[in-house]
């Protein structure tokens, strides 16, 4: 099962990020990773949480526009060239990366990266078969 990422549309105005995180906190939803893509007019907040179904529900109830996307989470060696090895594999297989972001791992020797690719199934397959640690959804949600 792929990792589910929740994306939220945000206007560029003050207080919106605080509002989203407060709503999640009040509903006891834990954020394991996040990234914010912003333009001059708007932002897209992308979140990995422990309970994506519930998170989407409470955000929608509070009037936010959201969408759910399948993404790939990988663990790479926390050393120079660690990420490069994984990205080369995807490039060689012709899998395009739309965006990616790294997040903090509790394991000391591993860096965790979320990848949004054009072909998530193929991405997981080539990464796994080349020895890259692809995390399951449960592993990610529990972080």
């Amino acid at each position: 099962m792929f990792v589910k990422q929740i994306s939220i549309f945000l206007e560029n105005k003050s207080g919106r990020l605080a509002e989203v995180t407060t709503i999640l906190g009040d509903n006891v939803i834990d954020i394991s990773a996040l990234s914010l893509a912003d333009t001059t007019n708007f932002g897209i907040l992308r979140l990995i949480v422990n309970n994506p179904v519930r998170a989407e529900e409470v955000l929608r109830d509070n009037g936010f526009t959201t969408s759910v996307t399948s993404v790939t989470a990988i663990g790479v060696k926390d050393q120079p060239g660690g990420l490069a090895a994984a990205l080369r594999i995807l490039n060689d297989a012709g899998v395009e990366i739309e965006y990616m972001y790294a997040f903090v791992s509790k394991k000391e020797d591993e860096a965790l990266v979320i990848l949004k690719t054009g072909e998530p199934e193929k991405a997981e397959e080539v990464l796994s078969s080349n020895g890259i640690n692809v995390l399951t959804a449960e592993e990610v949600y529990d972080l």
Partner: protein
Amino acid sequence: MLYWNQSRECMPREEMQKLQNERLIKTVKRVYHNVPYYRARMQEKGIEPGDIKGIEDLPKLPFTYKQDLRDNYPFGTFAVPLSEIVRIHASSGTTGKKTVVGYTRSDIERWSEVMARTLVSAGATKESVIQVAYGYGLFTGGLGAHYGAEKLGASVIPISGGNTRLQVEIMKDFGTTILACTPSYALYMAEEIEEAGIKLSELKLKAGVFGAEPCSDAMRNEIERKLGILAIDIYGLSEVIGPGVASECPCKCGLHIQEDHFIPEIIDPETEEVLPPGSQGELVFTTITKEGLPLIRYRTRDVSSLEYSPCACGRTLVRMSKVTGRTDDMLIIRGVNVFPSQIESVLLEMGDTAPHYLIIVDRVSNLDVMEVWVEMTSTMFSDEVKRIEDIEKNIRKRIEDTLGLSVQVKLVEPKSIERSQGKAKRVIDKRKI
């Protein structure tokens, strides 16, 4: 030269009224017999052409609305066969379709006549070099000013709008003496002149005829100061004829209406009663010489008032005050008429978008800018920035194609645009005109 046509512009009031009576009677007969639309409307009110004996009978006639022209789109309200029409112009309609106007050869002649009067009231002569920086095309501004200037025998530079650097270069090199454009564009040009390091003494500019959008006294003073010229406010709308319906004289105490062609009335837009001279209300025009598209009591939606007292310039033509507002929600942006409903139609046609929008108009360095806020919907939303930007671009392009005007589109969060039970607030106009 003080006047272009002194016998008409300075005609004693009684004679003018006699002329209007004769022309009105003829016009009413003509539209009754030639335009099924007008005949039907008059029959509904139970009147016949014989009931109209002079301008005192005007209130008996039905009003004509912009919507009526649209319902008869494109040529249904023309009073002559298309073979007699030599020119077609169009302006924005309230939704989708344009408002179409047609001119016979003698309509063009009359239009040139009233526009020549306008130019002369700004001091133009056949020696003048007139730079027409109104847009040429479906919009009546460019060609209207052009034909008037040629009629006058002046040298016309048909440069149209835009390309401000070239405008300024030509103004200097060709020795332009009269500028015709929108007041906001005149201010924009003044800035360009300053930036180009051109001194006013290097220019031969003496006066300008500025119209197609409201111009306050403060704005006029700024134009006069920055360009060192006499700035004359002119008024017109394509349905009535285009530019040339009314124009200020150098006294700047109201705009003289070319009454031998257009009869004005001021009405209360709610009760539709005719108001006495001096009262503020909606300006209504009846055309009494036009052949292609004669209009009976056309509701302009412009708010003004009428002043019949003699003017120091010698003209006896009634003066209308500067237009102070609208009785509908039409906006004038860079001289282009914009109805909020046009934007609503675009959003509804697109399907994915919600018809909740807010128009924000502002004036940035003398140019009108328009931003449209559109609410994000879940069908439009994506986790990728590029896709959302594509949607924004697509909405922008559709609106621009419909309005013929560049706009900015900003996607906002759902339900962030105020809903109201009654009339929704669709426009925030920050311009100080």
